[in-house]
């Protein structure tokens, strides 16, 4: 049954470990540094927040402090990559790839060099810092750009695997990580491969709906699916951690089975995973789709959980979206 090898006590949120995805990135980065000495890390005055300080402690000679200068961060990394290094550049997603988008476009994507862009403090779950720091457009920015691999891990364990995977993929890549503690519900045994979506929940019967998500909200999607099952609604839940390249094969298969889709992400509805899925299915297998995401507005100060609810990203909102899409099913 549990092919995805998720934790056994999935529904027991209070007893799950809770860590931020940035911790997984920080650990993965140290490991990547151990495995390949070409890995260098550049940070823009945010080494603790981005957890690059762990790498810095271990490999001080491969850590480069850029100061508050995200444009230089991206472009110096481009030079390092052209030379032959594997640079990870870390800042808040609001500033990288937010502020330095053109630098990324020309000097990393067009140049086609393997710089790894690490967008920390992404999403509304940043919390009290407010709208300026809650990056909700980064997936769209990165996904629209040719050549960039876009990965959005769902928990700390997956963030570590994703970091290791992009360290060796030899492509310009973007990884999105978050600030706040979130449930750790995958395990070391959960399969992870860039470009391959994982089915995290598969009903024994034909599914009524397929919920496709990425990032920390995937946990809410799984909880919603369990609760819906008690109402007799069966949901497949897919972890589409790689937003680009999208795993069309898996998405097509679950769409054909369920014939209704709900997408879930902590990002503007415009341009994110939901858009990617819709673009793909509109062409290949059109089915009704509802979108869980931020509805064309900026974030605001508040506690992470409070904001997740207020912005319609919680378990109830997902259940409502499922019921809504089922009504549209012919």
């Amino acid at each position, binding site marked *: 049954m549990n092919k995805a090898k998720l934790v056994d006590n999935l529904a027991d949120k209070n007893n799950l470990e809770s860590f931020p995805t940035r911790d997984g990135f920080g650990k993965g980065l140290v490991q990547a540094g151990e495995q390949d000495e070409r890995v260098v890390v550049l940070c823009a005055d945010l080494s603790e927040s981005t957890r690059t300080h762990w790498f810095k402690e271990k490999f001080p000679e491969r850590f480069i402090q850029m100061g508050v*200068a995200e444009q230089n961060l991206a472009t110096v990394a481009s030079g390092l990559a052209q030379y032959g290094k594997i640079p990870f550049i870390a800042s808040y997603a609001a500033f990288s790839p937010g502020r330095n988008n053109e630098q990324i476009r020309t000097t990393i994507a067009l140049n086609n060099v393997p710089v790894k862009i690490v967008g920390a403090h992404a999403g509304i779950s940043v919390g009290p810092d407010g709208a*300026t*720091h809650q990056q909700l457009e980064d997936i769209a920015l990165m996904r629209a750009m040719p050549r960039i691999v876009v990965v959005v891990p769902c928990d700390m364990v997956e963030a570590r695997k994703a970091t290791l995977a992009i360290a060796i993929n030899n492509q310009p890549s973007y990884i999105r990580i978050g600030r706040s503690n979130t449930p750790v519900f995958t395990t070391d045994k959960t399969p992870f491969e860039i470009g391959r979506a994982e089915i995290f929940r598969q009903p024994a019967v034909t599914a009524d709906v397929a919920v496709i998500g990425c990032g920390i909200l995937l946990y809410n999607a799984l909880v919603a699916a369990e609760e819906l099952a008690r109402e007799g609604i069966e949901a497949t839940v897919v972890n589409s951690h790689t937003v680009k390249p999208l795993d069309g094969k898996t998405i097509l298969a679950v769409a054909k089975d369920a014939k209704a889709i709900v997408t879930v992400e902590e990002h503007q509805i415009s341009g994110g995973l939901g858009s990617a899925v819709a673009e793909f299915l509109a062409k290949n297998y059109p089915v009704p789709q509802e979108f869980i995401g931020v509805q064309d507005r900026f974030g605001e100060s508040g506690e992470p959980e409070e904001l997740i609810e207020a912005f319609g990203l919680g378990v109830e909102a997902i259940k409502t979206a499922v019921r809504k899409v089922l009504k549209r099913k012919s």
Partner: protein
Amino acid sequence: MSDHIHDDKIKELEIKANQIRQSLIESLVSAGSGHTAGPLGMADIFTAFYFHILHHDPKRPDWDERDRLILSNGHIVPIRYATMAHAGYFPIEELKTLRKFGSRLQGHPERERMPALETTSGPLGSGLSQAAGIAYGARIDKKAFRTYCFMSDGEHDAGNLWEAAMFAGKYKLSNLTGIVDRNNIQIDGMTEDIMPLEPLREKYEAFGWHVMDIDGHNMEAIVDAVQEAKAIFEKPTLILAHTIPGKGIEKIEFDFSWHGKPPKPEEGEQFLNELRTLGGQIQSEHE
């Protein structure tokens, strides 16, 4: 405004700054997150501006002729909120809502929620450009108001800021005054270790600015410097305000680890006590 500031007025401003520091600590404790060192270090300058320097009207924040105060380093906004509350822009009680859901007092300032903040900021390095734009517009329309831009030292790492410095120098924006919180700290450590900024004075001078160095905790020096800036007609002016991060609370002073954390409730009590017992008698370091 008279040219010279009287001793009584200085004393009054110092007492006010102490009260504002207390409100700041209370609001940070209530928020449970936020920045402490930078805001404390800028308390004296904010007080001098809102209670003596600025031409403004808390009851009419959209008054066309008001001086514009642009805060570039948005993370220190709690000190602006505390000062504005004391100046009468909104009830002091509202400071307790800092960083809470639904509050106008966002973690970083948002113009849409409180127009008197003038601009939205937090992402560093872009305040001076906006201030320069305002100053340029005001000059086209021959407006008399002045534009002030508060910046941090850490944000001088950012290219955008130097683009603005070059622009203001080119157009000789003498109605623009920059004030830098030169506290020598940023998040990862001391500014000169993270990305050396010195010689900051000479850099601005090379870009066509008139530059002054002052003790950012000396009310008289703050007021005099702004007065001098008004007398410079062919250049923008930069005031390098040397400040002590965490000024007023011994435990926080000079410690960069206080950049981005609030006092815990027990600490808050202790800090408030420390401020209260000074009874408004804060003496400048350089007297």
